[in-house]
C-alpha cells in the first residue's frame, strides 16, 4: 500500500494501516522528541502522545503530502507540553539552579580531537535544553530533522522571516552558553568553513 493510501485507510479506522504508518515515521518522530526533550523517557512519552493525537485526528486530515509535516507539528507540540508539565512539577527556579547535565568541562584542550568533539556534542545537547521552546523547536527541526526554512515555517505555522530569525537567535544563544561553559574556546572546526557553506547545511 502506498503512503497516501495508508493515510486514507488509517483515517477510516484501519489500525493495521496506522501501524504501518507508525513503522514508517517512528524513527524521525522519536528522534525529534528526543532532541526536544533531552532524555529518552520523556521522548518516549512525547512520541507516543504525538502518534495518539495523529490517530485521533486522522479522520479530519486530508492530503498525504503534508502528513509528515503535520506529524512533526504534533510531536513538537507534545514535547513542549510535556516539558512544561515537567518544569511546573519541578518548580520554575530549578532550571537555573541545576547543572542541566553539563559535565564538568576540562578547560585545557584535549590532545585528541575526537574526544573534544564528543565533549562538545554533549555540551550542545545540554545547551539545547536551556533555549526557549520556540528557539529549540526551530533549531532542532533545522539541524536534526534537516527541514528547509519553508518546511519549518509550515510545521510551526509562522512565516519564513520568523523561522530565519528564530534559528539565528537560537544559534547565538547556544553559542553564548557554550562560551560561558568554556566549550568553544580553542575549538577548531573539523572541516574548512567553505565546504559547510557551499553544502547548504545538510
Amino acid at each position, binding site marked *: 500500500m502506498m503512503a497516501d493510501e495508508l493515510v486514507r485507510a488509517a*483515517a477510516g*479506522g484501519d*489500525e493495521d494501516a*496506522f*501501524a504501518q504508518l*507508525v513503522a514508517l515515521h*517512528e*524513527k524521525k518522530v*522519536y528522534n525529534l522528541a*528526543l532532541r526536544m526533550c533531552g532524555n*529518552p523517557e520523556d521522548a518516549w512519552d512525547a512520541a507516543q502522545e504525538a*502518534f495518539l*493525537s495523529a*490517530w*485521533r*485526528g486522522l*479522520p*479530519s*486530515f*486530508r*492530503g498525504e503530502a*503534508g502528513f509528515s*509535516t*503535520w506529524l512533526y507539528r504534533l510531536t513538537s*507540540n*507534545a514535547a513542549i*507540553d510535556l*516539558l*512544561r508539565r515537567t518544569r511546573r512539577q519541578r518548580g*520554575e527556579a530549578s*532550571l*537555573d539552579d541545576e547543572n542541566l547535565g553539563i559535565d564538568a568541562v576540562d578547560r585545557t584542550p584535549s590532545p585528541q580531537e575526537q574526544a573534544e568533539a564528543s565533549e*562538545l556534542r554533549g555540551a*550542545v545537547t545540554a545547551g539545547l535544553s*536551556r*533555549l*526557549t*521552546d520556540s*528557539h529549540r523547536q526551530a*533549531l532542532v527541526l533545522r*539541524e*536534526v530533522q534537516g527541514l528547509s*526554512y519553508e518546511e519549518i515555517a509550515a510545521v510551526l*505555522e509562522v*512565516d519564513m*522571516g*520568523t523561522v*530565519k530569525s528564530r534559528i*539565528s*537567535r537560537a544559534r*547565538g*544563544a547556544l*553559542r*553564548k552558553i557554550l562560551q560561558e561553559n568554556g566549550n568553544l574556546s580553542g*575549538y577548531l*572546526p573539523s*572541516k574548512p568553513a567553505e565546504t*559547510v557553506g557551499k553544502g*547548504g*547545511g545538510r
Partner: protein
Amino acid sequence: MKPCEEYEVWISAFLDGELSGEDRSELMQHMAVCQTCQRYFDDLVAVHDALEQEEVPVPEGFGPQLMARVRETEQEKPRKRIPFPHWRQWTALAACCALAVLGLWSFRNAQGNQKAAQDAVAACVPYAAPDGADIPEALNGSEAGTVPEESPKLRMANDDTPPQPEPQEAKLEDEALSIAPAAAPPAGDAEMCMERDNGPTVYESDETGALSQGTLSAGGEAARRWVEDELGLDWESGRLYQLTKEEYAGLLAALTEAEEDFRQEPGEGFWLLAE
C-alpha cells in the same frame, strides 16, 4: 555598513543554504575584513558539527505499546468543511481600509505625504480574497481545509493539542543582544512626538510594503510574550531591544493580532522600547 548583529542572521542563513546570492557576496566581503564575524561563523560551524548526530534507534516495545493504546482510543469524527464566511473577507477589507484612512489622515497631518498612505492601501488589498474564492492553504494553514469557527485565529483544524500556555520557564539572559536605553536610536522629531496620543501612526513604506525603520514602543501582554518567545530574553520595562527587520515585522503583526496598543517612531534600525 550594517552592524555585525545583522550579519549574524545572514551567517546563520548561509549555513543553512538559505541566503540569496547577492547577500551571500556581501557577507563574504564583510567576513573578509571582520574578525568578529569570522569568529562567529567558526563558532556556528562548530555548533552545527556538534548537532549533527546520528539518529538513534527507537527503543524496543515502542510500537506494540503504542498500538495497544491506539486500540483503546477512539478516533474523532471528521470535522465538516466550513467555507470561509464572506462577511469575514469584507470585515478584513474594511479593517484594512480603516487603518489606511487613519494612516492617511495621520500622515497628512504630520508631513503632508500621501505616498505612504497610498502604499498602505495597496498593501492591504491582498488580504481580501475575491468573493467565493477558496482561501489558499498557505493562508488557512490547514491541510484538512477546515476552519474552526470558534477560533479567532485560523489554525490547524486537526491539530488537537490545546493552545499553549504562556511560557513560564526560566529564560536565557542575553545582555549582548540588547543595549541600555542611554544608547537609544534617534527619537522622532517634535512633530511626531506630538502625534503620540493619537494612536498608531503609519510611516513610510517602500514599494514592497516593507516597514520603514524605527522604534516601536509597547508594554502589553502580547509584547512581553513576544520578547520572551521570539528573542528568548526577559522583559524589562525601559529596555531597548534591537531587532532584525523580520522580527520588527513579526512583532508588529503580533501586536496587531492581539489588538494591543503600540506606537511607532521613525529612526535608524529596528527597535522595541519596552514600556
